[in-house]
């Protein structure tokens, strides 16, 4: 049986298991690009990229750096037990969220799974309420009720942050349904990990989207592992081409190359908005950390594999190399952006630290619209039972 796969290494290859992971700065962006890092992208000339101003390019770079530094800071907070629950880090995948979300127009919407910090920052959410949410503080973007997996900001067309693998994909289809119902020229992007492709709900969503020509792009962020199970052990066949069975267009994208993400997604988003057509994209990417921080990532892949990615395919290093070559970035600016991103993350952590927790009274708020709007309450009876 042929298994054409990503670069993901099946778990049998653990012979070269390396030294224990360092903590702290989880994924340093290499200071000088090694030779293997390309200073060009075939997609740089695509209209959507060619049209970018120098400032816009720098902003895309800055956003990726901000995501990484935010997450590294959150990791430290987690390790010092300031943060509970799970923490699914996005480190290594930054070009996907930043590339896709940078294309959003006013009627475009985004929904994602539990690895949602990158998308939240990419749509423009302030990092202070994001960090406060991790700390379980009332100043968090979900008032401390959602946690890491449940970030939301409907004012930025960002609909979460969902904890069940694949469960958000029908919701994303519903966003597209609403866009079409209203006659708007918008599109929904429903992000999922590669593990989600085997969930029935995803296939049901594919079928509905294609059957009804809904403007939704199903974005599979393929980082090679469904939690700790490599693709070779979890997914039959190719991920993107499953779309063919639903008569949907599909595309495979190099997720290490921000320009390529933007170029290919732009074409699909335009088609979705103008022709109301769905598509499936598989964006090949990689995560440097474990499935979550609680998953020490020691049993299913080896350190050498991770280091190889960091050395040759880091999306931030790659984009920086290109911007330096294009003359849009300088070394001074690189340092400045990095320093600002670090202090922004520290500032967010300070803000979170200083914020109050929700009170016990807050437990039963935000459960029912009706309970929170007593002046307009029409129903009787008891809503809560204790």
């Amino acid at each position, binding site marked *: 049986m042929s298994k054409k796969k990503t670069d993901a290494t099946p778990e049998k290859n653990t012979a070269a298991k390396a030294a224990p992971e360092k903590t702290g700065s989880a994924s340093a962006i290499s200071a000088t690009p090694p030779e293997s890092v390309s200073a060009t992208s075939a997609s740089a000339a695509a209209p959507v990229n060619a049209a970018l101003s120098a400032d816009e390019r720098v902003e895309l770079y800055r956003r990726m750096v901000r995501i990484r530094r935010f997450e590294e800071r959150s990791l430290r907070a987690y390790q010092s037990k300031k943060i509970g629950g799970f923490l699914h880090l996005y480190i290594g995948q930054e070009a996907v969220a930043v590339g896709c979300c940078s294309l959003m127009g006013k009627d475009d919407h985004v929904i994602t799974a539990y690895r949602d910090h990158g998308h939240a920052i990419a749509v423009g959410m302030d990092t202070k309420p994001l960090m406060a949410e991790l700390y379980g503080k009332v100043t968090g973007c979900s008032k401390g009720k959602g946690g890491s997996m449940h970030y939301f900001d409907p004012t930025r067309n960002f609909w979460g942050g969902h904890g069940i693998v694949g469960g958000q994909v029908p919701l994303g289809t519903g966003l597209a349904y609403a866009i079409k119902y209203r006659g708007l020229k918008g599109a929904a992007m429903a992000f999922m990990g590669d593990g989600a492709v085997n969930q029935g709900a995803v296939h049901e969503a594919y079928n509905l989207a294609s059957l009804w020509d809904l403007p939704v792009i199903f974005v599979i962020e393929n980082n090679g592992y469904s939690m700790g199970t490599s693709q070779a052990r979890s997914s039959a066949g190719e991920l993107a081409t499953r779309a063919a069975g639903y008569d949907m267009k599909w595309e495979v994208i190099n997720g290490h190359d921000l320009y390529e993400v933007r170029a290919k997604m732009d074409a699909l988003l335009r088609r979705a908005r103008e022709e109301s057509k769905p598509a499936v994209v598989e964006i090949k990417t990689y995560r440097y950390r474990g499935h979550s921080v609680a998953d020490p990532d020691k049993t299913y892949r080896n350190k050498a594999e991770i280091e190889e990615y960091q050395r040759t395919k880091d999306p931030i290093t790659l984009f920086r190399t290109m911007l330096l070559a294009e003359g849009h970035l300088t070394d001074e600016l690189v340092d400045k952006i990095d320093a600002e991103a670090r202090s922004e993350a520290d500032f967010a952590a300070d803000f979170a630290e200083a914020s109050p927790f929700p009170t016990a009274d807050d437990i039963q708020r935000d*459960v029912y619209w009706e309970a929170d709007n007593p002046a307009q309450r029409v129903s009787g009876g008891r809503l809560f039972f204790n």
Partner: protein
Amino acid sequence: MPIITYREALRHAMAEELTRDENVVILGEEVAQFRGAYKVTEGLLEKFGPKRIVDTPISEAGFVGMGVGAAMLGIRPVIELMFWSFYSVAFDQIVNNAANIRYMSGGQINCPIVIRGPANGGTNVGATHSHTPENILAHHPGVKVVVPATPHDAKGLLKSAIRDNDPVFFLENTILYGLEGEVPAEEYLVPLGHADIKREGTDLTIVSYGRPVIQSLAAAQQLQQEHGLSVEIVDLRTIRPLDIDTVLKSVAKTHRVLIVEEQRPFASVGSQLAYMIQNEAFDELDAPIQRLGTIDAPAIYSPPVEIEQLPNSQRILKAALAAASA
């Protein structure tokens, strides 16, 4: 007052709300061209067109989840499950998404969805098609659960459900679809969370909802005629929010309670009711609270035996006599 069926009452409720609010859409298996598996949506496609009345594939997780996503953006989907028994196929979307989204988002997102369709047994369709999930649904904070017993209540409650900003699960009863009753010609609403005294009495309170209300009414008639027993019947109409105060008031009047439900007894709506009554009206009780429900086993197919498994007027009558003389 015009007399129409429970089925027609539901249809009228949807038609009125479709007319009133262009955000209302009807989605479900066979709701449009087939005119509804139980003909509840008959005629709506002709009147409102295929944009508003939409046939879905047999794909409950997909279209329920899609409805939740659309509701997050302000559409007000009314989703028909061909059988409420199929809630299990869409359970993740119902409890993790519809029920939780407002809470997890810190109150930023509402989910004004209605999921409706026939529930319960009594039509000899066996274990997979005879679920009574109201306790399981109502267990989840964030949702409302409605079970109407009469055409009047069915129409007024469904209209309220469609206007509600929280997710409402609306459980109809297959056998009641043909039940006729008086329904006002003019527009009206029955607000959620208000129990109704379906019959006044002084000797025993029967607390019930859904089809057993109708069966209890027949039993109460016989109890009055043959045993001189005066039975009060409280129809909850809504399981969550729950109008326990009306129940307690009735208990204070009769001092004896029989709970009748089409649920199996373990961890049912009735078990919660019994707890609340004893907790909040212990001094009013002259006898232990009695319960009657479905005999604890999966729904049996065999038609004459299924009648015995479910509450029926004769079983209710026997249980009421026992409760009244305890």
